[in-house]
């Protein structure tokens, strides 16, 4: 690995970004609403919510997919953001992106409406088994479902559309996936395999079964009314995260390559860090060591120390567990500065975009650096005295930010942190 000093990795430029969340499509709209403290959380209208404990989500209903399928929406959202990022980077002719593709995507699976389409073909209302469904495939009428429901399909279609080079990588590190996509791009550029990489996080998985799965793990907020007030990261009355959809794309480029072609550098990924947790499938190690190690690795990779970090874009889900552990980790690393370093959760407004979150929040962190303005943590009405933090409560504010830390933590002990900065002088 090309090293500068202190074991640090080479910084990598960001020359194009794109985003869609429940707040809207594109950078301008999202940034305006994010800094205005608006919420994108709404009552679910996509499917009936009878018998559900949680009836709200940050759905992206304004991107039409008919009939709805999470796989199709996930792909459509990724197309939208990649279009924005690649066009902003102005790095290639249409459909000829000069580097690899890394896509963070929720695992693709056969959804209920797919099963129902197959069942309907059997023309029977009696009890059935998988053997009956298998028999129905004999007609050959469902051939297209095979490709649609392969795990690699979203990335394959994106690779075709944008002309990325090599084998497109689909990946999951649960709720850290978006950050892992960026990390893989950074590493490929640092290895000299490519001058540029297209990194995407995308998630369109608000469907009944996905919502119910999180609900059965008691991970979701049930504060359904009013929807906009449900996501309450770092508040004493926080009661879970709010599921949400969205996507973000980043065009990464080696600094030399970006400078040589006179590209506008939006910011740089200065460092990446990770450390897996072996404690439990859904809970963090009580001593916080993996979270602390993950953040420290990212800061070291950036050639910085915790004192150099001016702002934290936390994982900040609003679950009791996450926010407590994230505070513990921040406190261990930042010591006396814990109460004063600003740390604001985008998820208070856009909800938890799951596989996309790491990429969406990296894009918002880049905008925070560009505008020197901190988006707020909204719904911060009842501070939790156990985790005293400057969460930039409820209202955005200006600040001097040179280096920011963006955290992503996920089920399965996944921890990834990114250090993002402004263009080096």
């Amino acid at each position, binding site marked *: *690995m*090309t090293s500068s000093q202190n074991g640090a990795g080479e910084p990598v430029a960001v020359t194009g970004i794109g985003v869609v969340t429940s707040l809207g499509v594109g950078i301008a709209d999202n940034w305006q609403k994010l800094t205005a403290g608006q919420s994108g959380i709404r009552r679910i209208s996509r499917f*009936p*919510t*009878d018998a559900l404990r949680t009836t709200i989500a940050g759905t992206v209903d304004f991107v039409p997919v008919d009939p709805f399928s999470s796989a199709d929406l996930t792909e459509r959202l990724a197309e939208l953001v990649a279009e924005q990022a690649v066009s902003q980077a102005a790095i290639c002719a249409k459909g000829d992106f000069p580097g690899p593709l890394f896509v963070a*995507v929720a*695992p*693709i*699976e*056969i959804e*209920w409406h797919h*099963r*129902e389409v197959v*069942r309907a073909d059997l023309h*029977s209302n009696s*009890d*059935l*088994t*998988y053997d009956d*469904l298998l028999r129905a*495939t004999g007609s050959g009428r469902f*051939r297209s479902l*095979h*490709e649609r*429901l*392969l*795990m*690699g399909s979203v990335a394959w279609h994106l*690779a075709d559309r944008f002309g990325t080079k*090599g*084998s*497109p*990588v*689909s*990946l999951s*590190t*649960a709720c850290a*996936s978006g950050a*892992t996509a960026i990390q893989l791009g950074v*590493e490929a550029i*640092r*290895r*000299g395999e490519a001058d540029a990489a297209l990194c995407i996080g995308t998630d369109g998985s608000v469907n*009944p079964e996905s919502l*119910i*799965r*999180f609900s*059965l793990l008691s991970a979701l907020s049930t504060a359904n009314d009013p929807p906009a007030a449900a996501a309450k990261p770092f508040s004493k009355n926080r009661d879970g995260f709010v599921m949400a959809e969205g996507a973000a794309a980043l065009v990464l480029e080696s600094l030399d390559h970006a400078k040589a072609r006179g590209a506008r550098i939006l910011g740089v990924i200065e460092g990446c860090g*990770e*450390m*897996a*947790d*072996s404690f*439990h*499938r*859904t809970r963090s190690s009580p001593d916080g060591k993996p979270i602390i190690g993950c953040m420290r690795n990212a800061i070291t990779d950036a050639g910085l120390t915790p004192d150099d970090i001016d702002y934290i874009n936390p994982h900040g889900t609003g679950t009791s567990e996450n926010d407590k552990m994230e505070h513990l980790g921040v406190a261990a690393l930042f010591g006396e500065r814990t109460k004063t370093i600003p740390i604001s959760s985008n998820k208070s407004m856009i909800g938890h975009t799951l596989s996309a979150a790491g990429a969406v929040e990296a894009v918002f962190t880049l905008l925070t650096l560009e505008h020197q303005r901190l988006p707020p943590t909204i719904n911060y009405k009842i501070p939790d005295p156990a985790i005293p933090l400057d969460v930039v409560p409820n209202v955005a504010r200006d600040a001097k930010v040179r280096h920011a830390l963006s955290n992503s933590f*996920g*089920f*399965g*002990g996944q921890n990834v942190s990114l250090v993002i900065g402004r263009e080096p002088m």
Partner: protein
Amino acid sequence: MADAPRETWITGIGIVSCLGEGPAIHWQRLNEAPLQPEMRAFAPYVVHPLAPIEFDKQIPKKGDQRQMEAWQRIGTYAAGLALDSAGAKGNADLLARMDMIVAAGGGERDEAVDAAVLSGLSRAERPGAFLNERLMSDLRPTLFLAQLSNLLAGNISIVHGVTGSSRTFMGEESAGVDAVRIAHARIAAGQSDIALVGGAHNGERRDLLLLYAFAGHALKDTFAPVWERSAHGGGLALASLGAFLVLEAREHAQARNAKPLARLTAVLSGRSDRQAGGITAVLARMWQDLAGRLMSDRVAVISGASGAEPATGAEREWLATIPDIPVRATGTYLGHGFEPQFPMNIALATLALGHERLFPLGDSSGVEREMRGSVDQIVVTGVGHWQGEGMALVERAR
């Protein structure tokens, strides 16, 4: 990259399949005639079920086993075998620095719940409300964790303590190819010293059969070696298998006195335009990339051909352009397990190189021929049944 690439050693392999567990039994069975796989349990579909495994040996806590579905148990078990093989098991310092890339599918379903809900849906007055009610009451809360693709890696962290890093790649066969490629590239470039890489697949699932039956790819009715299936339209036989490798920088292995089982000297991945018949061209290009490294007449190919058409036919066409190179398709013995197929074949190549000879042919179509003499270098192919191609060069340890 300023520095010269570092040499990558394979210092551990962990494999389980229908043939059994571990190198010895795999080598023994590969030297016998291919077995007829299971024909009854999933009739009319042909499936290669996992040989009986005592999961306690690698996953001692029953609580851990209960939290996993079969594909995760298979993978966690195989990962444990690989760590044992590398002499890394229980070495907390080493495991805390060990990187991990897992190639995973996921989504293991509760078939009974699916069938009951689907049956009820057709008669429900308000299907949406019915679906919610049934899923809220019938889904086991922990099933989700057994379905999530990244939770095989999560379970390996929990059970074996691998925590340096943890990444999961998805995308069928390509996930396995790119997992090995990127783990290898990171070691070569000095971004990583030691990595656990591999995957697992449970083929004994009707929900997965459905996915491949949609396009007519699931092998039915008659078993035949993979090269001999094209007469009946081709088809892949789902397999249960788990395969993990420990890859390690030579210097790192030497410093801890670990021995190389083989050297991994190149890993290539690509994605051809299949509409345009690009498979043969991309394989030819990859072979050309490796040609300069192929030193002797002691070269063989271990193919990951699935039996699915037209992919297998295209690979066969390419193989005909290198007629002097002996070929073996392990899918005939193991079935097809998608994500772990490529790491499995690298492990089997490692095994053959350790024995300094190729195993006998398992096919009478003429694609596979006897190999006289010993083998020094094995090229492993991984042509996805639908998308993606890969190739690796595995060489005898010096």
